[in-house]
């Protein structure tokens, strides 16, 4: 099998996510039935999404494996490929390679309390994880599920409708925060590290996944250590410029580790051994 060949995918639905229009969610469906059958992933993995004539872009999978038949990506318009994607219409064809990379260690979450901490538009794979854990087949496998999610302003939080639904559930503790007070906002205010400190999730039999802009991760990690989480129980997902996604092209390494095949998910214990991670 040629790992450089993309599968054809059709854009089924495009959902604008943010007020500033830089974020859109693309719901894709498989063109070939056999591709759909083979596509099997765990939250935290990523794909190379491509537009012919423009190139490829590595993106974390925002849908959960429990959401059958579709694959979702929430895309920030930044470069050549992501801009081209933003100009696409429902019904258009894109290419997809993956799933690639490792995943969040969902097996290790069994009988544990799980804390999910996210910031900004990095919440995509955390949404995948949360939806996966909330699935009736998985929810009973873990104990408490806490989600802390922050964005600069309310309009930049992803998945508004879903967040509203999550707030009503009693099997998920959701804490939403924005950087500065805003009209009509009745949730928390403050940066994610500060809010995490206030909420103070217990490290007892708990695992934590934290994902967001580098600056947020950098300041949240010490808070988690202070709360008593061992570095082995803290996971994060990293990003680097990537091309091949399969450990050959040589650019996404952080020290000896390739983000594409050794990551993107690393424990904080792993990262402490790596130079220049943030």
């Amino acid at each position: 099998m040629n790992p450089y060949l993309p599968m054809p995918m059709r854009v089924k639905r495009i959902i604008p996510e943010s007020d500033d229009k830089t974020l859109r969610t693309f719901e894709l469906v498989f063109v070939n039935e056999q591709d759909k059958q083979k596509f099997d992933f765990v939250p935290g993995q990523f794909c190379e999404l491509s537009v012919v004539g423009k190139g490829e872009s590595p993106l974390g999978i925002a849908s959960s494996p429990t959401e059958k038949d579709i694959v979702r990506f929430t895309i920030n318009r930044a470069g050549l490929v992501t801009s081209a994607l933003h100009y696409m219409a429902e019904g258009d064809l894109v290419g997809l390679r993956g799933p690639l990379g490792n995943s969040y260690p969902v097996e290790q979450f069994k009988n544990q309390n799980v804390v999910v901490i996210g910031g900004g538009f990095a919440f995509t794979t955390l949404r995948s994880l949360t939806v996966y854990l909330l699935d009736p087949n998985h929810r009973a496998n873990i104990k408490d599920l806490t989600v802390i999610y922050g964005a600069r302003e309310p309009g930049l939080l992803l998945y508004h409708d879903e967040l509203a639904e999550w707030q009503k559930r009693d099997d998920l503790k959701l804490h939403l925060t924005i950087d500065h007070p805003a009209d009509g906002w009745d949730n928390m205010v403050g940066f994610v590290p500060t809010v995490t400190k206030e909420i103070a999730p217990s490290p007892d039999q708990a695992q934590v996944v934290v994902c967001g802009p580098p600056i947020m991760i950098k300041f949240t990690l010490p808070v988690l250590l202070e709360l008593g989480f061992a570095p082995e129980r803290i996971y994060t997902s990293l990003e680097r410029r990537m091309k091949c996604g399969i450990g050959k092209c040589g650019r996404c390494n952080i020290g000896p580790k390739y983000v594409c095949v050794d990551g993107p998910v690393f424990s904080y214990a792993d990262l402490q051994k790596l130079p220049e991670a943030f």
Partner: protein
Amino acid sequence: MTQQILKKERVAQFIAELEKSHIVYGPVKSDSLVSFVANPGDKLRLDIQTTDRSPKDIFFPQTEVLLTYSGGKTEEPAHSDKPVAIFGTRPCDARAFSLLDKVFLGEPYTDPYWQARRNGALVFSIGCNRPSSTCFCHWTGGGPFDQQGSDVLLTDIGPAFVMTACTDRGEEILTNSKILNEAGPDEISAAEKLKHDAPAQLTETVDVTQVGGTLEKMWEDEFWEVFSAKCLGCAACAYLCPTCHCFDVQDEGQADCGRRIRIWDSCSFDLFTKEASGHNPRPSRKERLRQRIMHKFSYFPGKFGTVACVGCGRCVRACPANIDLRTILETTVKKGPE
């Protein structure tokens, strides 16, 4: 280990025989540069030691089509059924093929383009009787008559080459060829003498195969500032290097018709790691030079058990700023544990 004689006047005949089953590449001088070309014919130059360009592009072309697309359909390019034979590479470059095999054929993904070209390939190397002043194969675990990566090793004894089989496939060729003569004791001892005398012409050995640990400790050393201050970031070193294998993937063409290609790239370039946001985890030449050295002498050995340098010296010869990799390595070795 079969040994046979190939008389120099029969080289063309031997290659013609090889061409029946293989696409034969050999070193050819063109526009004052020596590189490997297919069907070299009478332009074949077996007297030139380190070619200007390494032969890595035979298996890893500078530009390679990954797929073509047209009207919503994508297709893989077809590969020639005829395997490659390289005649006249040097032991350092042959060794580099075996290092790149680890990258492209290693877990968890096999690179089908590299694999297709490597399938059934034969490598005929010529040992180096008189290594040049920029050669340092012996620092990296190789040597002027190293056999790693070669199917047949040739020793130039003047009027003829003594051919030594290094693999089963090399053995097969030497046993079956009608063009070769049996090697007599005089010819074998002449070859042995050359092999014995060659290392004496090299500089004193500095073992750089275990330098990774020291490099890791020197992450923040001022040494990187000093060496990178001269670096122009031109990547001539990487393009000529037989083991540098980093590449970029780009699309060429329009939305309805075109191709996706991979092209050589280098960690010396600013754009190599620059992200769409503008953030660059390796913002200056210091981080980029460090990456190049760390990759070859720390990360690669950590993953594959061997340094990603064969000591061909092309980077030393080509650097417009006179950065000598050997000086960087020697400095590191000296800073290392006694």
